[in-house]
């Protein structure tokens, strides 16, 4: 009987110890906080590996109704700022110490990342208003600047690799690329069709994009054919109700006309 009591006591004790150890383990595991979304915000420049992870996280790591990083949120503002920081690609693409081929490869990969970035902030609410218009436009501006660099590097490489950079086939390829670039820029102007989806601040930011990036494009390729762009700008001018956007479109039309005039003279 005494031996049986001791056995029972030991069994009881072992069970209690197991419970205590299990509880300790649970406490340890639950105390280890794992952040839901991780971004390398301390890193000075985001490279392609960072974009790979961040873009995938922003595209697929958030639930449908979960708040995305936004400029208006002081806690997550830094994430959008880092994501759309043009220095991330400029630091490589503008570095003349790096080889042209390498920079071109990096530009191509950044361009591919940017294509995926376009899906992050394009959600609309029930009134067909953009939920994140300023963030979406920041992504757009990132892409417009990137394309300007990317297409220039690509064309430089075509000329460098050609036996005769002045041959008609090389010139034709370069011109085709410039036309593609212009056509890509036109997609930005098409957003004026969704003008009502933007907030007033968004419209101002959109107009700033025309002023800054379209001017840079035309200054960069003054001899290119901008008739399609002029036509599109004129159509959008009729459609737009925003004074700021209208003013930017007028400036763009004038700039194209002035370049054409200079070319003809």
């Amino acid at each position, binding site marked *: 009987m005494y031996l049986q009591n001791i056995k029972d006591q030991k069994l009881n004790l072992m069970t209690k110890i197991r419970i205590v*150890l299990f509880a300790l383990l649970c406490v340890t595991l639950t105390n*280890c906080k794992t952040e839901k979304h*991780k971004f390398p915000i301390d890193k000075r*420049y985001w490279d392609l590996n960072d974009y790979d992870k961040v873009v995938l996280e922003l595209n697929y790591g958030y639930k449908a109704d979960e708040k995305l990083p936004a400029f208006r949120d002081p806690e997550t503002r830094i994430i959008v700022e880092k994501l759309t920081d043009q220095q991330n690609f400029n630091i490589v693409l503008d570095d003349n110490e790096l080889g042209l081929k390498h920079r071109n490869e990096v530009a191509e990969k950044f361009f591919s990342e940017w294509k995926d970035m*376009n899906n992050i902030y394009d959600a609309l609410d029930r009134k067909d208003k953009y939920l994140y218009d300023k963030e979406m436009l920041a992504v757009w501006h990132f892409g417009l600047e990137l394309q300007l660099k990317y297409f220039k590097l690509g064309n430089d490489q075509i000329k460098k690799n050609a036996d005769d950079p002045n041959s008609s086939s090389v010139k034709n390829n370069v011109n085709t690329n410039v036309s593609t670039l212009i056509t890509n820029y036109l997609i930005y102007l098409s957003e004026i069709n969704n003008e009502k989806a933007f907030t007033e601040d968004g419209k101002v930011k959109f107009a700033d994009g025309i002023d800054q990036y379209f001017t840079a494009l035309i200054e960069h390729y003054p001899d290119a054919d901008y008739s399609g762009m002029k036509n599109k700008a004129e159509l959008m001018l009729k459609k737009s109700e925003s004074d700021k956007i209208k003013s930017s479109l007028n400036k763009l039309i004038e700039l194209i006309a002035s370049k054409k005039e200079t070319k003809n003279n």
Partner: protein
Amino acid sequence: MDILSCLYFGCMGVAGYYDQPKKMNDYLILTLIFLVYFSPVFYHLYLAIKESNGGNKIPLKKFKKFLKYSIAVIIPIIIGFGILTHTNFLNYERPFTFDKYNQITFENFRGLEFFKKSLYGNERFAYVVTSIESEINHNSVTVQSLFYPSRSFVYKKNTNNIELLTHEKYHIKITELFARKAKEQISKLNRFEKDKIQGIIRETEKEEREFQREYDYNTFHSYVLSEQKRYEKKVDSLLNVLTEYKRPKIEFNDKN
């Protein structure tokens, strides 16, 4: 490649679902090791508390014995681990003076790294440990830069990452540059003054650390190649200017 990418939405790829792997926290691993290692101690502690009410002192003695042996075993392990993290004595190589600079390759980076797995998410990283060593004698001062192979680390010894090696080796050059700067200032002293010499060395060490940080920040650990090249030119040119302070020893005999 002739024609660049077409309209951006025309080239859209299909991305799969991305499930970010959850890395196990280092603290969690350490806590688990601690718990498992000390589990017999906890067991005997529990027994001791339980039995102490009945006046049974044997479990308490057993607990103390287990605790003593557990600590006696873990402390040398922790110390050994700490020593190896600081300097890899299992693969030791004496510190290099600057005259052996050209012989340095990643083969000389013999340090062990148990904790740091990446630098800004990049697993291909290295670090170098250098110092300005000084010895003040009766009428002479020896100042020289040292590179510590057994404290310097590279993720893979046979890597052919020349840019990374160049970046790390310029850290060594920067240390040498500041050692020469210190010798330049010491040489300009009118007489041997130990306090002033110590002050110069301390100040130079501070400036050197600041410059090393600035070098890493501006080159972003060699990522920004144009900045890397700018620093290389600057450091090489300054080292050339201070060539006369190449010798480690400064004698004060003729000045007294």
